[in-house]
């Protein structure tokens, strides 16, 4: 049981801000799931840090009162002792993990406790089974998506088997699929009888797990609601409290479609494609984005949204053409006309005051800059250093800098990920008010409330391709809601494929692979045999040059030798070609079978949507043209190279 009695804490020490919590009296029973909610800066994170011991051992300040977990005094005991009782999962997936590989990270907590190897092995197996982490074992953490990293973080804490779990905004950078996955993990933890303390903005996915909702305002607990009470709360009350929606079906939508009639195209993308290594990560035929629109880009992590945004800005090399306002532009030109506000806000702040940051390299007057800052609620922070602001304030500073930069196209990557309702609404209103100044706003987001509040169009992406593009009218709003309510697929991110083109082709030949090497060898012997005649002729020429006379008798062995070599060359060449055709044929068979299997797994609609002729062409003509390539090109190349 967790008891907080008369708790008073304010961040102090050298770098303190003076914020904190006051007069907290809270009791959390065993096995209960409590959700702490409230506006940004209300003290939710501070409470979680008080429970897991980071305050006062890591974050300094003045602490009055005590935190007790059964008999264990958290504030007075060592952090390593508290960590055996309390497991913590934090907000940022990127900075929580200590190891480079997933398996090492999963056992990190157990190693810290000092458990013997067999016990660690048992716990690892149990964690992998309970939390369904099998596809993520033995992988490089840097290659995982954000949601998968959070799953590993939860698994790492689960393996250490604490009684209490404390989670600080775990869903903050996650997409729909990942949120479903951690929801299942939390359900499992609760079913095991553990206590969960979760501090969250996005409360809609916790409605069926939470027992109590505790509302904090400015460091004081001002409300306590049961799950039913929360569910029954109307949207106006939620808005007043500054809380986000509790049910996706109820999110109100702003219909913007009438403002977008007859809009010219601002951005025209034709045949844009990007490859990383040897796999294609972006493949777009055609998109037309209208002028003065606010386009939301939606899709799972890893589907290519960030790649599309970076390709549009000209940051990464890509094939295809992008036209802005009718003129095709190169990468450098696009960089000059676009501006992207990135997800990691720390990387974009260059100056020592907010005012300076907004006016850096921008052709904007002081008054306009001040007006933008006021609209975003940053007027009081003009002279503060950007790095001393809170996360949400930093994000707003970056957005202010974007709006003052005077560029035509602004792209936002997850601008509202940690913002509460007020922050999100403010951002939406600001976008709307600047619609006339900016030709196009492009927002990558996982936030359904933002999309329904201020976007004019929605672009769906999946695996590098555009799957839908529609305006935000009533039908569009319903489509967005359905998307967020639908079940996600079960795929995990793929291990990066490091095989080259040749490697992939060789993989398709399957059993006949030795034949490929055999034919290459035969070709090389044949090529060697074809060189020898030149050497023989050379010897003849040298003999003439050195003064000897050329008669038929002396030249005969050389001529015979040349003939033999030519015959050998022809024979080996034919043998090699025959073997390579065998291998190519086998490869074709394998490719056809694989294609057939893949086709059977496609949803019926997409198959019927294609014409019969298209499928037939794919199977017969396209594949046969590969055979020519396989059989002849590769082996000719190998023989010429060896020459």
């Amino acid at each position, binding site marked *: 049981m967790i008891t907080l009695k008369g708790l008073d804490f304010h961040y102090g020490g050298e770098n303190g801000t003076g914020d904190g919590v006051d007069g907290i009296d809270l009791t959390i029973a065993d096995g209960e799931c409590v959700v702490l909610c409230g506006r940004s800066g209300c003290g939710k994170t501070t409470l979680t840090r008080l429970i*897991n011991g*980071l305050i006062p*051992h*890591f974050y300094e300040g003045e602490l009055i009162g005590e935190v007790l977990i059964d008999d264990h005094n958290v504030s007075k005991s*060592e*952090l*390593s002792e508290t*960590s*055996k009782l*309390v*497991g*913590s999962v*934090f907000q940022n997936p*990127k*900075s*929580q*993990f*200590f*190891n*480079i*590989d997933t*398996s*090492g990270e999963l*056992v*990190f*907590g*157990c*190693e*810290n406790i*000092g458990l*013997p*190897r067999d016990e*660690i*092995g048992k716990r*690892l197996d149990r964690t992998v089974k309970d939390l369904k982490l099998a596809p993520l074992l033995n992988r*490089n953490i*840097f*290659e995982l998506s954000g949601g998968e990293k959070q799953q590993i973080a939860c698994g*790492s*804490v689960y393996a*250490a088997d604490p009684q209490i779990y404390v989670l600080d905004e775990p869903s903050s950078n996650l997409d729909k699929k990942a949120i479903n996955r951690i929801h299942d993990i939390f359900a499992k933890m609760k079913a095991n009888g553990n206590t969960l303390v979760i501090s969250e903005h996005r409360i809609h996915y916790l409605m069926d797990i939470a027992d109590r909702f505790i509302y904090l305002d400015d460091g004081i607990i001002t409300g306590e609601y049961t799950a039913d009470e929360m569910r029954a709360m109307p949207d106006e009350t939620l808005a007043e409290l500054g809380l986000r929606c509790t049910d996706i079906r109820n999110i109100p939508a702003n219909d913007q479609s009438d403002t977008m009639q007859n809009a010219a195209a601002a951005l025209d993308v034709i045949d844009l494609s990007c490859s990383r290594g040897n796999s294609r990560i972006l493949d777009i035929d055609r998109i037309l984005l209208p002028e003065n629109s606010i386009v939301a880009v939606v899709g799972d992590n890893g589907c290519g949204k960030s790649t599309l945004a*970076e390709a549009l*800005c000209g*940051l990464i090399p890509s094939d295809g053409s992008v036209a802005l306002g009718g003129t095709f532009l190169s990468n450098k030109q696009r*960089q*000059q006309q*676009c501006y*992207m506000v*990135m997800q*990691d806000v*720390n*990387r*974009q*702040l*260059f100056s020592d005051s907010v005012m300076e940051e907004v006016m*850096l*390299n921008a052709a904007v007057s002081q008054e306009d800059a001040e007006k933008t800052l006021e609209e975003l609620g940053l007027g009081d922070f003009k002279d503060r250093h950007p*790095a001393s602001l809170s996360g949400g304030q930093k994000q707003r500073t970056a957005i202010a800098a974007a709006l003052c*930069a005077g560029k035509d196209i602004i792209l936002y990557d997850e601008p509202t990920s940690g913002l509460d309702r007020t922050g999100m609404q403010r951002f939406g209103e600001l976008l709307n008010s600047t619609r006339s100044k900016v030709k196009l706003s492009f927002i990558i987001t996982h936030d359904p409330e933002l999309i329904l509040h201020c976007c004019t169009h929605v672009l769906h992406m999946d695996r590098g391709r555009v799957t839908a593009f529609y305006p935000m009218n009533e039908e569009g709003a319903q489509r967005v809601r359905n998307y967020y309510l639908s079940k996600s697929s079960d795929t995990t991110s793929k291990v*990066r494929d490091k095989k080259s083109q040749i490697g992939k082709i060789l993989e398709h030949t399957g059993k006949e692979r030795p034949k490929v090497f055999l034919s290459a060898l035969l070709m090389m012997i044949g090529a060697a045999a074809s060189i020898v005649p030149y050497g023989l002729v050379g010897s003849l020429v040298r003999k003439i040059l050195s003064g000897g006379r050329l008669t038929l008798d002396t030249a005969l062995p050389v001529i015979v030798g040349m003939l033999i070599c030519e015959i050998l060359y022809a024979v080996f060449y034919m043998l090699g070609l025959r073997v390579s055709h065998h291998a190519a044929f086998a490869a074709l068979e394998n490719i056809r079978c694989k294609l057939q299997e893949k086709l059977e797994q496609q949803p019926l609609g997409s198959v019927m949507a294609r014409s019969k002729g298209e499928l037939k062409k794919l199977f017969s003509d396209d594949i046969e043209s590969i055979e020519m390539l396989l059989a002849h090109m590769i082996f000719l190349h190998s023989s010429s190279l060896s020459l």
Partner: protein
Amino acid sequence: MDISVYGEDRSALVRFDPRTKFVIFISSLAVSSNSFNATAHEIYCVVLCVMLFLCGKKWNAVKMSLLLGTAVYVRTCMEMQATGSTVVVTIISFILTIFLYCFPILMSLLIITQTTRINQFLSAFQAMHIPTRIVIPIAVMFRFIPTVGEEWTGVRKAMAFRGMSLEPSAIIRHPVKTVEYILIPLLFSCISIMEELAAAALARGMDSDNARTSYETVHLRAYDYITMILFIAAGIWFFATGMVTGGAA
């Protein structure tokens, strides 16, 4: 920068203990500073290539041995008939000599970095009873290097939109300003990540005063001992002959 995985031993034919690889490295140090006998040096280099092959990086081993072969071949040719302008010959032979000198060290470093996983390293350090106080910074350094690479890429992209260019001409004209623009976001970003990392590690029980166990195991087996003895003997032999030849000359 794209250092995704430091080293892996999935395709190793023989799994050597990281401590054996350290011994190889130290003996290579001794060899390279005392390599007066050209043939012995070449034999040692070939043995290192074989070791790399055994440890799993087969293509790399073949490539390095081809490189070694070419270098020795060219040097032998030049010894026999040094035709051509003296300047070019001197420069090429200079480069070749440095290459052959560094070859043992380079190969042993490749063996260490490309075929060992970080967890095996840390486990070996703990088995060697190196205190946790030294192991933690090294582990953090390995884990943080890819993060610095990612942050650097992000900062570069952010700079592109602000009109701050990174071309050499711009760097020469405003060196201090460019350095400031590069360092400030990079440092703030990395400091934020390192604070969160420290908080997360501490909240999960890491403490330099307590002993940690390790799930990864490293065993010294028979072939490890044999290899270590062979390499130590080679190192001593080279060192001794080096002293003799160096002293005599």
